């Protein structure tokens, strides 16, 4: 009996329960949409990009990881390619639950706080519902969680240098998955610099230095390769596309946007089947169009910035919830996670104040908190500056950071019940 009790209260058992519950909710959600996979015209652009990469070129919009994943899924089985990608994304999400739990444990949080934060992450329909969407968001969420885990072990763990190398490699992977993650470089750099500062072993320092230099070199090499084809030292032109669409939306440019739609036919898989996507697009603006847009942007820069501030303002009212209403448990669970972006921004400000207070008053190590704050603020800025709409979808990679921040925030407080008025009156 004692053994059963100890198993039931063990961390591994509870973590397993949470993971299974997450999977059950995911299947419940999938059943509401008939186990369909959701994809839009952006999905086709990844398959077109995969073709470019397989021919030894760089795509102008997409970085290689997700297109190559799509190509790999096509090679496995063309008719079921979307299903394969969904399953892979969901597996990554389920693994990330354990990663988040382990990350929160590293800063010595109370057991209950760890499980509540992990359960909230695992059971949040807004997060696992992205597994059914053939976009980069799902892998972005999972990889952010893995990054938080490796960064927390870089700061608090035993093998700092190894986790440091893993963090660098992971960030490189994330940037190649989604250029958006360039905004995570400052936060990761803070942690790596701290690890180097704390590293007393020369050999470990050399390993970290080498890894950092290698990552920077690889990124630079990619950018140089991109520059040799498209004339711009960058990872992708997606910012330019979004900028031009914003200019058009605000009446500062009135030119055709250069998006061309194609019917995409994939190569055949191992069984001779192929995939057809009817609305794949590619951005192929003319030189004249690009020159006109660049000059429109330069002439209207102040107005552009003003409109972006208004967009930030509008984002205050947005929220992350997006799941459908058809199954009652999921609908009410989704509503629990309804938080507006304004409330998130307020929480981040409060969190920053508390952490700075802890740094100066209590001399606490807040490097991880600083990294998380940097990730969140950079995500907000990059989404609003770099896109023209759908900010909540673009900001979704910062969601695991928010769960970790809530856990850290909870560990900063102490609480116990005080005497009530009745008890005080009796003693008086």
């Amino acid at each position, binding site marked *: 009996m004692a053994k059963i009790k100890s198993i039931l209260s063990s961390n591994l058992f509870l973590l397993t329960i949470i993971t299974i519950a997450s999977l059950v909710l995911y299947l419940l959600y999938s059943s509401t949409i008939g186990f369909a996979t959701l994809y839009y015209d952006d999905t086709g652009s990844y398959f077109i990009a995969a073709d470019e990469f397989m021919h030894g070129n760089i795509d102008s919009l997409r970085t290689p990881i997700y297109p190559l994943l799509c190509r790999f899924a096509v090679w496995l089985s063309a008719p079921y390619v979307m299903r394969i990608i969904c399953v892979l994304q969901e597996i990554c999400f389920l693994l990330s639950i354990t990663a988040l739990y382990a990350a929160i444990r590293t800063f010595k949080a109370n057991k209950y706080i760890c499980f509540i934060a992990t359960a909230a992450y695992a059971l949040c329909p807004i997060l696992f519902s992205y597994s059914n969407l053939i976009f980069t968001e799902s892998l972005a969420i999972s990889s952010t969680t893995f990054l938080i885990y490796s960064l927390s072990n870089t700061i608090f763990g035993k093998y700092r240098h190894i986790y440091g190398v893993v963090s660098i490699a992971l960030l490189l992977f994330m940037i190649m998955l989604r250029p958006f993650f360039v905004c995570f470089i400052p936060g990761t750099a803070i942690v790596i610099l701290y690890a180097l500062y704390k590293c007393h072993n020369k050999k470990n320092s050399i390993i970290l230095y080498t890894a950092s230099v290698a990552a920077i070199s690889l990124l630079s090499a990619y950018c140089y390769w991109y520059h040799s084809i498209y004339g711009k030292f960058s990872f992708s032109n997606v910012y330019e596309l979004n900028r031009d669409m914003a200019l058009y939306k605000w009446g500062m440019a009135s030119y055709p946007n250069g998006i061309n739609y194609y019917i995409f036919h994939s190569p055949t898989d191992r069984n001779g089947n192929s995939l057809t996507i009817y609305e794949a697009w590619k951005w192929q603006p003319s030189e004249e169009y690009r020159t006109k847009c660049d000059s429109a942007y330069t002439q209207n820069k102040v107005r552009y910035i003003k409109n972006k501030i208004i967009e930030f*303002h509008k984002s*205050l*009212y947005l929220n992350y919830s997006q799941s459908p209403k058809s199954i009652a448990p999921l609908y009410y669970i989704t*509503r*629990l996670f*309804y*938080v*507006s972006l*304004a*409330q998130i921004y*307020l929480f981040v400000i409060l969190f920053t104040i*508390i952490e700075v*207070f*802890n740094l100066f008053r*209590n*001399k*606490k190590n807040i490097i991880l908190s600083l990294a998380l704050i940097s990730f969140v603020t950079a995500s907000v800025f990059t989404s609003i500056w770099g896109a023209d709409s759908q900010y909540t979808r673009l900001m979704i990679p910062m969601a695991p950071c928010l769960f970790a921040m809530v856990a850290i925030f909870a*560990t*900063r*407080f*102490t*609480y*116990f*019940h*005080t005497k*009530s*008025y*009745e*008890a005080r*009156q009796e003693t008086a």
Partner: protein
Amino acid sequence: MKHDRKPHNLLRILFYTDFGNRFILISFAVLIAWLWFSFAGFTVKWDDDTGTYLKAGDMIFCGHIDRLRTPIYPILCHIAVSALQFKGFYILVFVQLTAFFVSLFYFHKTASTFIRNRIWAFVATALYAWNIPTMEQTTIIHTESLSTSLTVWFIYLTTSVITGHGSRKICITAPIVLTLMILLRPFNMYFVPIMILAFIYAKYHKLPIWQKQTFYSFFFCILCLFSYCSLFKASYGSFSLSSVSEINRAYSILNNSAFDKGAIYPLADGDSIRHLRYWDIDYSHLSLQTADSIYHKNILKYATSRVTQFDISNDYYFPVQNNPLVYTYVLPIQCLKLRQIYLILLIIFICRFITFLHRKTMFAPTTMLLLMCFTTIFTTLWASAGFAFGRLMLPMFPCLCLLIPGVFDQYNIKLKKYHIIQVKR
């Protein structure tokens, strides 16, 4: 030589005394109101209810009771409008704003009574005092703003009774304030059980309640309300304060407003005439009788429909008048969705319940505030027509501002202090 580390006298008064704290709170509230109205514009707002108060005021001054409105607010409207026509509304808004600022004083007194920690008491009052949506409500010609300020006074009086600070004046005034609140807004009738429970609690714990004087005060107030209801019955056939619940019920059962003739109340505004549209009920309309009959035959179905109301209410912002929010920087931060408020109340209730089971302590002020919140939510969902949740639940706002910091104080939630261990090398 030791340096004198005592803060300067003025700073000590401002931050460490109740007077100083209240001075800061009220000054900042005035400053925020001034800044807000300078930017957003200070204009009187009205809705479809405003005309009904004016019409009721006319009836009362002709010697009759109005079927829809209890007398206090219509009397105030009539006096203001008789003096200056449309411009008279500015007097009313001034009265509402003044009542709001006076309520800040009583709010802080209440917070200081049951919240030990000075900082949490300050935070509780700041949440109420510096809330722009609540200030905005004072510029609207409806009962909610005045009712909220009176609710603060009511909370102060009842909290004083249950914490043993009830003087004779407080015990006599409490029932009178509640009566005024009921005659201002019949909705406040649902606070009567709370007041009775407060006095019973005080008596059980042998706290001073000046039994004889309190009893006479209760008796006088019941007599007033009874007389009003009797007059209402003589005029309109039902022993009640108002027919507003009947009308709201008809709206929700029938999903149409065929019984609303719609009318215009003209008011002179300088050289022009303002036409205030208001809802004018045809009480002999067949649909009203149909709705009443449906309600009485199938109360269970009506009760089930209230669950749908609860569901709909989740998406409304509080404490604003309508959806969507006014497009500003401030309001998204100062408003919550009702579903978030329900969740907070549920968490507080669970914490209180667990504490009660473990330690057998009730902590009466928190319990009273929770009861007021649940009563407000229930009454709004039961009796409203389903579109003004934020406005109708406004009396809950002061309770929330007291509850949340009160819980923080009660559970002694504070930042951890880490001990820095210095190792001698």
